[in-house]
């Protein structure tokens, strides 16, 4: 394959059978989103959001993101002649910071103890003060689920004859909403299952419940199941995925595999479960969990 732009290599990621981790009589396939150009599923979202915004060259983007979306936006911005500022929690891993800076983004820190919600709040404040910015805002941008409807979901539907359950991580809700909608058209009985991070005390340091936030992209009524996964379970599954299948994936991928195995176990013989592995393990190398050490619950997810 010869591409005229790296952006043409976004999507069309491979599916691989998890032969060692599938329960007897069931088949789990993993979609390897780590094989996108910047190494995560967010390349799809970034490209779709930028293209649908129809920006002039030189436009300045502002986005609350602690990593993958920022890195993807930074690549897309670079190749399309745009500028990018990312608002991210101060406790994001050093690899993600370094990558963002290397790709050319400017970083603004939000309080680490407020997690993603704090980054969203701060980005909204900056936008109100400095209207030159365009905030694509993945949490509310319909190009986010659409990228998965037209890409992730369509790819799975064209490759597989049967899908009984889709399992993906719950972040903005974009993957689950878009991929889920496309798979429901192809496989009407498919279960759409969210693997949700169990937040830890530091991340939950919200001032009040009224600070809670449900992304507009996410419609919980379109989920068939929503299962909590602790960081310990997610990290253990990420290690097993590497040991048994040779797949070096991130922590959210571990959570998704953990849930996919549970769901596959509960489905009848012959069932096919597809799980979406959002990224590779590289950006989490500084996290101690690869060695089985105590897990810092604060900073692992995505």
């Amino acid at each position, binding site marked *: 394959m010869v591409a005229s732009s790296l952006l043409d290599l976004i999507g069309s990621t491979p599916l691989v059978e998890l032969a060692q981790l599938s329960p007897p009589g069931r088949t789990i396939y993993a979609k390897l989103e780590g094989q996108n150009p910047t190494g995560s599923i967010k390349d799809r979202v970034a490209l779709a959001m930028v293209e649908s915004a129809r920006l002039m060259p030189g436009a300045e983007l502002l986005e609350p*993101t*602690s*990593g*993958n*979306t*920022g890195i993807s936006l930074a690549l897309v911005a670079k190749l399309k002649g745009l500028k990018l500022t990312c608002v991210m929690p101060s406790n994001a891993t050093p690899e993600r910071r370094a990558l963002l800076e290397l790709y050319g983004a400017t970083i603004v820190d939000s309080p680490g103890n407020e*997690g*993603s*919600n704090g980054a*969203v709040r701060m980005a909204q404040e900056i936008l109100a003060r400095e209207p030159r910015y365009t905030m694509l805002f*993945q*949490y509310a941008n319909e190009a986010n689920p659409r990228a998965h409807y037209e890409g992730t979901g369509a790819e799975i539907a064209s490759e597989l004859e049967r899908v009984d359950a889709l399992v993906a*991580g*719950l*972040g*903005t*809700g*974009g993957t689950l909403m878009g991929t889920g909608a496309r798979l429901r058209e192809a496989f009407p009985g498919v279960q759409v299952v*969210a693997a*949700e*991070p*169990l*937040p830890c*005390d530091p*991340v*939950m*340091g*919200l*001032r*009040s*419940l*009224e*600070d*809670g*936030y*449900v*992304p507009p992209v996410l419609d*919980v*009524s379109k*989920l*068939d*199941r*929503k*299962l*909590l*996964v602790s960081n310990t379970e997610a990290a253990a599954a990420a290690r097993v995925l590497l040991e048994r299948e040779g797949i070096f994936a991130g922590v959210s991928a571990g959570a998704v595999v953990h849930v996919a195995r549970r769901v596959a176990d509960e489905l009848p013989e012959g069932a096919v479960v597809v799980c979406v592995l959002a990224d590779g393990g590289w950006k989490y190398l500084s996290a101690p969990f690869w060695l089985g050490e105590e897990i810092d619950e604060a900073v692992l*997810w*995505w």
Partner: protein
Amino acid sequence: MSVVRIPPVLRTEAGGEREVEASGDTLRELLEDLSSRLPALGARVYAEGAIRSFVNVYVDGEDVRTRDGLDTPVQEGSTIILLPAMAGGR
């Protein structure tokens, strides 16, 4: 009896506890029982016969919004987790 895990933002209403006990065969009964034991906590989570917005309730790790809501059965020894709704996605 079931264990109810309390997030930091609600611990004041739970007398500072990380976990409290409550009983019921369904989530509705359990939240009614919780509201009678700890009215301030109950009112933050459950009002006018519904789970409040921005609160997620999990029975044995599954969000009750994708199960049977307040009719979700609760087993003896089940763990109930209360969490503020949070955006993920990075």
